[in-house]
């Protein structure tokens, strides 16, 4: 019988080192390149835009879903009825600054209805959030 020399089993960590290097690199990449976003229960794909007015820290964000419904926090409402609801919220929080986060496919009608409601609530200017286009 021929006997083969069995190779001594390699130590596990030796092969792990390059893997760890790569994982560390990825970790550092995500740490540096990304920005954290707060979790939201409504998924919207923002419309593309070119201009940026750099409004920051707008206290109230209204989300307009693709089907035209408006979210304020965890409350959902029809765009037509949103004015009253928002007016109450603005009175409670004592602010006039509102951002609208509308889906690109949301009906323009719903956004305009919402903006009309805001005008009636005394909001002269709103901030529409967009995503940077090419």
């Amino acid at each position, binding site marked *: 019988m021929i006997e083969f020399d069995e190779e001594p089993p390699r*130590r596990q*960590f030796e092969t*792990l080192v390059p*893997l*760890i290097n790569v*994982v*560390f690199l*990825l*970790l550092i990449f*995500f*740490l540096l*390149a*990304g*920005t*954290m*976003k707060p979790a939201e229960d409504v998924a919207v794909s*923002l*419309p*593309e*835009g*070119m*201009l*940026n*007015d*750099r*409004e*920051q820290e*707008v206290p109230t964000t209204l989300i*307009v879903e693709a089907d035209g419904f408006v979210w304020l926090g965890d409350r959902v409402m029809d765009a037509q009825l949103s004015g009253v609801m928002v007016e109450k919220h603005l009175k409670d929080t004592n602010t006039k600054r509102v*951002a609208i986060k*509308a*889906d*690109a*496919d*949301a*009906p*323009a*009608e719903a*956004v*305009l*209805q919402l*903006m*009309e409601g*805001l*005008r*009636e609530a005394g*909001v*002269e*200017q*709103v*901030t*529409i*959030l*967009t*995503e*940077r286009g090419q």
Partner: protein
Amino acid sequence: MFEEPIRKRGMASLTPLIDVVFLLLIFFMLTTSFLQEQSLSVVTPAPSADELPKDARVVEIWLNGDGSIAIDGEPVERAALSEGLKAAIGERKDITVTILAEKGSRTQALVSAVEAARESGAKNVGTARVEKIAK
């Protein structure tokens, strides 16, 4: 006399470290977003479309229900909206741009129209929603 205790290799404790690093990696992968968010300030429209001025110094952008866009009835691509509007306005600076959103038009078109109107240097920009644009 006494046997020396066998030295433990320092590398053996690497596994928990890798576990933690993997966890961190997955956490950052899931919570990171690379979206470049911008903001666009828009003046809220008056609730009635009747208040819109209707004279010669008005350029209308139509957001049709089928998704197409037109400037004073001339169909225009969304990418060419800005140039089209500048051409329609010409040299006059006292112009008012009115954006009419028909039932069925989308927010993307509205945002593009608002940006084009802003860039064109028009004095006033008004927005209104209508059931059907009178062609």
